[in-house]
């Protein structure tokens, strides 16, 4: 994050790398607010807040996996299974606590399986998580025979309804994630393994465990996102967040996380997720249909990636 002296004339405009995404979000928000006042309404800010939280959590997990050089395509399948499992547990026991515990455990378990296959069986992450995606969403649908499970305990539903609780969970996860990534041994090992796995192994790093931990983190975060979404929809659903996979990867990529591994920061992911959330919300308020919004998202990803590639070349 050093400033280049050659660009002294525009030094005041240099934004520290980590905050670029958030600045872009603020600019976007500003532009949108000019186009439609509704964007800035208090109720709408809450809407944006509630829709960014699950996306941020999932993208955070995705980034963790990407830093180690992998990818996790199974996050939406994990969410579906977790949602359904939690709903069943809560219906049987009537306890929100039991439900949430079951959900988090299930998410971590899925992460273990993914990580194990990638690290111990030495299988390509793309294929492993692709098959687990198919398996998990199939299992979720099979477990409830396509039916949703309603009638969840009131205590649980409060988790998703009140934006402060969901946002609080996101903030906690973000802070913990940042500390683990940047201030802990685990984090350093993760970056090392992603940067150059062979060298890391020769240096004595337990690369398989590093990888497994990243998938467990992804699974766990997917579970937290599932808790929030399930509570928000008041339903255990086997198709929870089906369309979110693209947005999750898109948000991570938009935020600047490299698919080749070795780079990533919590704020980047926040920037990417927030950008998508504001885009979705504002364009919706402006009356754009969801498919036009899809096209805009695609254009944004392409533009951001092209800008990034151009910047790297220009340096």
């Amino acid at each position, binding site marked *: 994050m050093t400033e280049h002296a050659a660009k002294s004339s525009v030094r005041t405009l240099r934004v520290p790398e980590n905050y670029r995404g958030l600045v872009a979000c603020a600019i976007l928000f500003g532009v949108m607010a000019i186009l439609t006042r509704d964007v800035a309404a208090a109720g709408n800010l809450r809407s944006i807040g509630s829709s960014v939280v699950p996306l941020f959590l999932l993208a955070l997990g995705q980034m963790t996996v990407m830093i180690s*050089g992998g990818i996790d395509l199974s996050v939406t399948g994990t969410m579906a299974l977790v949602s359904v499992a939690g709903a069943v547990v809560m219906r049987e026991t009537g306890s929100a606590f039991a439900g949430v515990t079951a959900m988090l455990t299930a998410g971590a378990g899925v992460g273990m399986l993914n990580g194990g*296959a990638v690290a111990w*069986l*030495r*299988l*390509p992450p*793309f*294929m*492993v998580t*692709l*098959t*687990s995606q*198919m*398996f998990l*969403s*199939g*299992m979720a*649908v*099979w477990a409830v*025979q*396509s039916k949703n499970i309603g009638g969840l305990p009131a205590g649980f539903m409060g988790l998703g309804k009140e934006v402060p609780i969901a946002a609080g969970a996101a903030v906690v996860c973000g802070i913990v994630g940042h500390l683990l990534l940047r201030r802990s041994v685990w984090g350093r090992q993760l970056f090392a393994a992603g940067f150059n*796995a*062979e060298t890391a192994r020769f240096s004595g790093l337990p690369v398989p465990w590093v990888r497994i931990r990243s998938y467990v983190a992804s699974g766990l975060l997917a579970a937290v996102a599932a808790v929030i979404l399930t509570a928000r929809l008041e339903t255990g659903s086997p198709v929870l967040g089906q369309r979110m996979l*693209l947005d999750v*990867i*898109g948000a991570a*990529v938009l935020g600047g996380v490299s*698919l080749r591994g070795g780079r990533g920061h919590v704020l980047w992911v926040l920037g990417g997720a927030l950008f998508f959330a504001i885009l979705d919300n504002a364009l919706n308020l402006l009356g754009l*249909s969801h*498919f*036009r*919004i*899809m*096209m*805009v*998202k*695609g*254009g944004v*990803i*392409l533009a951001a*990636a*092209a800008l*990034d*590639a*151009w910047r790297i*070349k220009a340096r």
Partner: protein
Amino acid sequence: MKRLLDHASLLLLALAVLVFGLMEPRFWSWNNLTNLLTQSSSAMVAATGMTFVLLTAGVDLSLGAIMFLCAAVAGKLALAGHPVGLCVAAMLVCGAMCGAVNASAIVWLRVLPFVVTLATLYLGRGLALSVTETRAMNLPEAFLTFGRPACAIAIAAAVVIAAEVTLRVTVYGRHLYALGAGRRIAEYAGLPARRLTFSVYVVCGACAGLAALLTLGQLGAVSPKFGENREFTAIAAAVLGGTSLFGGRGGVFPGAVLGALLMQSIESGLVMVNADPYLYPMIMAAAIFAAVLLDARRRATQDGHYRE
């Protein structure tokens, strides 16, 4: 043992055919086998296109979206009264053009294929939904001829043979393998890397258009979910057939064809033996996983170490 592992997918296919046939003899009937080939024709063509891209260590996540767009364009033209021939030509042109868009961004903007095709996936689906106004379109009956066994199998066979010949016999094919095996080295050796990379995405796009035609032939209609997830099944089929995600290894025949047939026979077999439909995705996922696992074991014993 190594020889066995070499042909993991072929073994699994033989196993599937055997087991399903024993459980339900009608599986072995000529009628059913023809059906199998017909139903997997679209997947074969899609997997063939994807193989070209995978050989260069790239990926095309927008395959399903391109299929949808081509189908939407054809549907609109057909319902406006244009002849079927024109619609088919339009589909191929549309597919190739989408592939060219991908190729341009990858080659000239120097963006990773994963990211480019992710973006074009969004763009393509959004555009197609906009063309169809998110409504389903029922196409004229003429399109159903492409779903007939003779026609579908003939088209798929033609594509597969053309692709296989190109890959194995021509200089272009050899260059593709070289490019995938090591990009830097290939460039130093004087290979026209950019042109090669550009071409494979155009080929993949055109194959997507053809695959869309074959699917249209069977469904007779375009719905908002057309082509959804087809890129993943194409990748799975290619990988099951022995194509590496990292480039330089694989093929169309038996490769992609084998992968597509394996996936389709599992699907059809499960229906024939009246298995619980809710179990299909899980069994399919398990089968793909098994094939990937066997393939990795083979490469591990062969190379001695696992390439990341």
